[in-house]
């Protein structure tokens, strides 16, 4: 058990290093950051001098070494654009992204699971077909278009909901939350729906197929044969058994929610990490881009590690076969 965990940890560190290397080497090619740091009238000599000061003229490996050493201490240097430590910026923006992502994930679960159960139990009812098709329409439209259409309708035409930002936020220590004010909650509605739509479809379909599998198993058939009422069988016995994969997948999908937040955040000017990242990309703010990628990789490595360990705890057979996968 310990050797398994140790092995996984080593692998995780290697993964992090690889991501760091890829992230880092990538940024040498995305553009010249100097232009965003100086004005129109700055001379070529001054630009060169700045490049030298930033260490951008050093050897690639020297630069990478410096980067990796600092990153290990959660130290990502200074943002060229904001002239502030990147770690401060990330800490400032993380609550916005996490709140949006978690609310979306919750929304996706709350709506997706009942729809999934329904479509599994009433496989051939017209409502099931309607759900299945509707959910596909939802994922057939690009996220950005859904966002813009929501803004156009609810923000501009009806003027019901705020069109951008987080509204009023309340500071709880270093965490800023929009969940405690009316304007904060109102601001959350459109972005979280936009972001949740894709996951909702995914969860609904997952629950449906898992339910169909479980309902075929002997033990559900047996429960039914024992004369337990239909609803109890469906919702308690069957649903309970589908929850493990659903929760696992949702957990793993948290990453993709955070990443898709890039698009939602930029459509709604939601002040989270995704917006920070995408603006850093267009301004060639290398330290922010690198930090964001390493951080996301870190999230995933941790989530993966936890999921792996849970599997080992749940399913002892896996302790022998350490190859992972299914």
């Amino acid at each position, binding site marked *: 058990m310990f050797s398994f965990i140790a092995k996984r940890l080593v692998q995780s560190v290697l993964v992090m290093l690889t991501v760091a290397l890829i992230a880092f080497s990538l940024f040498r090619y*995305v553009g010249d950051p100097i232009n965003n740091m100086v004005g129109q009238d700055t001379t070529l000599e001054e630009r060169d001098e700045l490049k030298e000061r930033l260490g951008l003229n050093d050897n690639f490996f020297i630069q990478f070494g410096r980067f990796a050493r600092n990153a290990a201490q959660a130290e990502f240097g200074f943002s060229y654009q904001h002239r502030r430590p990147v770690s401060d910026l990330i800490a400032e923006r993380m609550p916005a992204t996490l709140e949006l992502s978690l609310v979306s994930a919750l929304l996706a679960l709350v709506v997706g699971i009942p729809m999934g159960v329904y479509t599994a139990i009433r496989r051939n009812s017209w409502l099931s077909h309607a759900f299945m098709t509707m959910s596909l329409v939802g994922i*057939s439209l*690009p996220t950005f278009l859904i966002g813009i259409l929501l803004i156009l309708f609810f923000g501009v035409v009806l003027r019901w909901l705020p069109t951008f930002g987080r509204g009023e936020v309340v500071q709880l220590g270093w965490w800023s939350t929009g969940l405690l004010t009316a304007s904060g909650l109102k601001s959350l509605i459109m972005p979280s729906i936009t972001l949740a739509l894709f996951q909702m479809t995914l969860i609904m379909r997952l629950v449906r197929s898992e339910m169909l599998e479980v309902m075929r198993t002997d033990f559900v058939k047996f429960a039914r044969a024992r004369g337990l009422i239909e609803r109890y069988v469906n919702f308690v016995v069957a649903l309970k058994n589908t929850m493990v994969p659903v929760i696992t997948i949702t957990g793993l999908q948290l990453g*993709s929610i955070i990443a898709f937040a*890039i698009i939602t955040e930029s459509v709604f000017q939601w002040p989270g990490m995704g917006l920070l990242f995408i603006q850093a990309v267009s301004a060639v703010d290398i330290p922010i881009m690198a930090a964001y*990628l390493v951080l996301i990789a870190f999230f*995933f490595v941790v*989530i993966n590690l936890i999921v792996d360990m849970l599997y080992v705890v749940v399913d002892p057979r896996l302790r022998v076969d350490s190859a992972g996968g299914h």
Partner: protein
Amino acid sequence: MSDTAAPNPNKSRFARALDSDLWHNFITSPVAVISAALTLVFFASAVFAPYIAPHNPFDLATISIMDASLPPAWLDGSDPRFVLGTDDQGRDIFSTIIFGARISLFVGFASVIFSMILGIALGLISGYVGGRLDAFIMRVADIQLSFPAILIALLIDGVARGVLPREMHHDVAIYVLIFAIGVSGWVQYARTVRGSTLVEKNKEYVQAARVIGIGPVIILWRHILPNVMGPVLVIATIHLAIAVITEATLSFLGVGVPPTTPSLGTLIRIGNDFLFSGEWWITIFPGIALVLLVLAINLLGDWLRDALNPKLR
């Protein structure tokens, strides 16, 4: 795995296909028939775009800025030459949708095939060879699976643009996109194929083949691969829909195909800027086309999955 259609060596392949459960299942499902028909229409119009489209929106010499932003034919101020109106550059929307769908489908198909080849190859190797190599490949897969496709595609696109000389960008942009979307999608194929390979490789016929000295490549190709094609096909259909959407999203983030040869996604992104000014047709028509296309492919994929899964019969 699904050994649905029992091989019958006496009939031709085509006859066998017609006779199969799959075909029967297909023609009795209206959703499948309609979505297949729709997909076919899109494909046909994409392939024959130059013959079908009234204009060639990619030929700059034929478009005129003076025709810009004309509404669809049934509205005031329209021009009968442009059924669905024109965009901000004076391109015929109807033709641009046809040519745009051609680009979207090309990107979608090519990237799916790319992922498929990569995924199947790695999956077969991983499952068949096992050991350290398997552990390594699956670890990479785990990480990548949780790393969102959009982000991976964004990164690869960034690197490719950096590595390639700038003069080439215009010509290779579309291939970079294919590569980026393709690489971001191989994991599901690899996992599925690996799983099946693990099951198949211990079956007696494979053992027997190995004993009589047949090489691993032939075993993999002849015996194992055919058995995993069913689920792979299902993944591929859904993946095609995702690839088309990913391409659209990437173009929103500014890393799509050049605006002079827009895909459906690029077209929607361009039209976005004109939604508030009332020129809704620039976004809405390509948007409807994209939804129909992706929906049709998805429904087809859905049907295929249910049809190939004997447990759900």
